[in-house]
């Protein structure tokens, strides 16, 4: 498993390199880890606000009722498309569910893999990154982020039609 090797190799490489450069590695590590405290304190209120709003919106099922009418996209994939920019864990949950129901090699399974692999959780990243430094006016950030996601999904849909 290559993916299992990446993490330990990075840590090993960083530590050995620093030892060669005669850095006080233990002290440096402690210094760096300390910085996480102020970060998480700033972060928590933003996370709470986002999770509250997103979960209320999701559990109201408004999404499913609204998007019933779009037919050129497989039905199973619609919740994923909507969830992908909002929540990483729920889109991963939807992906797992699709694998279980239709298999990872099916058309829908492959399409879901493409979408998961080529996009990221825009809302989460915006909340996290801007929240951590106290930015309130995000200007056009959300629209550009969502457009980039939409582009990735559109290209995925085109790709799947070529492959299958």
């Amino acid at each position, binding site marked *: 498993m290559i993916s299992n090797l990446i*993490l330990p190799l990075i840590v090993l490489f960083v530590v050995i390199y620093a030892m060669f450069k005669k850095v006080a590695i233990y002290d440096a590590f402690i210094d760096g880890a300390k910085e996480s405290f102020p970060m998480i304190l700033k972060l928590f209120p933003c996370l709470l606000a986002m999770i509250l709003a997103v979960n209320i919106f999701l559990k*109201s099922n408004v999404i499913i009722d609204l998007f019933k009418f779009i037919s050129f996209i497989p039905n199973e994939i619609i919740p994923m498309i909507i969830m992908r920019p909002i929540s990483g864990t729920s889109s991963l949950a939807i992906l797992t569910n699709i694998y279980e129901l239709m298999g990872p*090699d099916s058309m829908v399974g492959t399409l879901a893999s493409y979408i998961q692999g080529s*996009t*990221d959780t825009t809302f989460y990243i915006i909340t996290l990154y*801007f929240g951590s430094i106290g930015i309130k006016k995000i200007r056009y950030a959300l629209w550009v982020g969502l457009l980039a996601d939409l582009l990735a999904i559109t290209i995925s849909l085109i790709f799947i039609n070529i492959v299958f």
Partner: protein
Amino acid sequence: MNKIWGFFIVIGILFCLLNNNVEVINQEILNSTKTAFDMAVKIFPVMALWLGIAKIAEESGLLKKLSLKISGILKYIFPEIPKGHESFSYISSNIIANMFGLGNAATPFGLKAMQSLQQLNLKKDTASRSMITFLVLNTSGVTIIPTTIISLRMMYGSLNPTSVVLPCIIITFSSTILGLVIDKIFARFS
């Protein structure tokens, strides 16, 4: 941000009231505090760990070396950042971690990158151009090895778990480039 937040909450609650789903929404309001706390608890130690490792890499000069490698490209993507500014090294570390599908490792670098971009920012409560550009790089996800997807596909018995890797790379790169173009257009007209 204020409008979107309000939109989600108002639409969500109204829709539930119309559908007689008050039970669900009650649960959700109470649960979200717990979910948020769990998430913070989950992120916190990983962040501490990676910030520690990052500090070692920083003090040994490794970050600077890595960032020199890709700062040639970054220079064109972030024209507003002065040459040799420390944010380049955080941005490049974030991109490198993202490429290997290490989302957890990428986040602390991303947060540090935002911090150093904030130093260059003139209006402290407003997002700068470079910040939004950096965000586009992150949200369009420049993944080369989608580790999570591969392992999930294995778990569910895919005949060829890595078959999606190449399409993912093609899709992610084309959407990233298009996203950057859109970003530049928005930046010009705002």
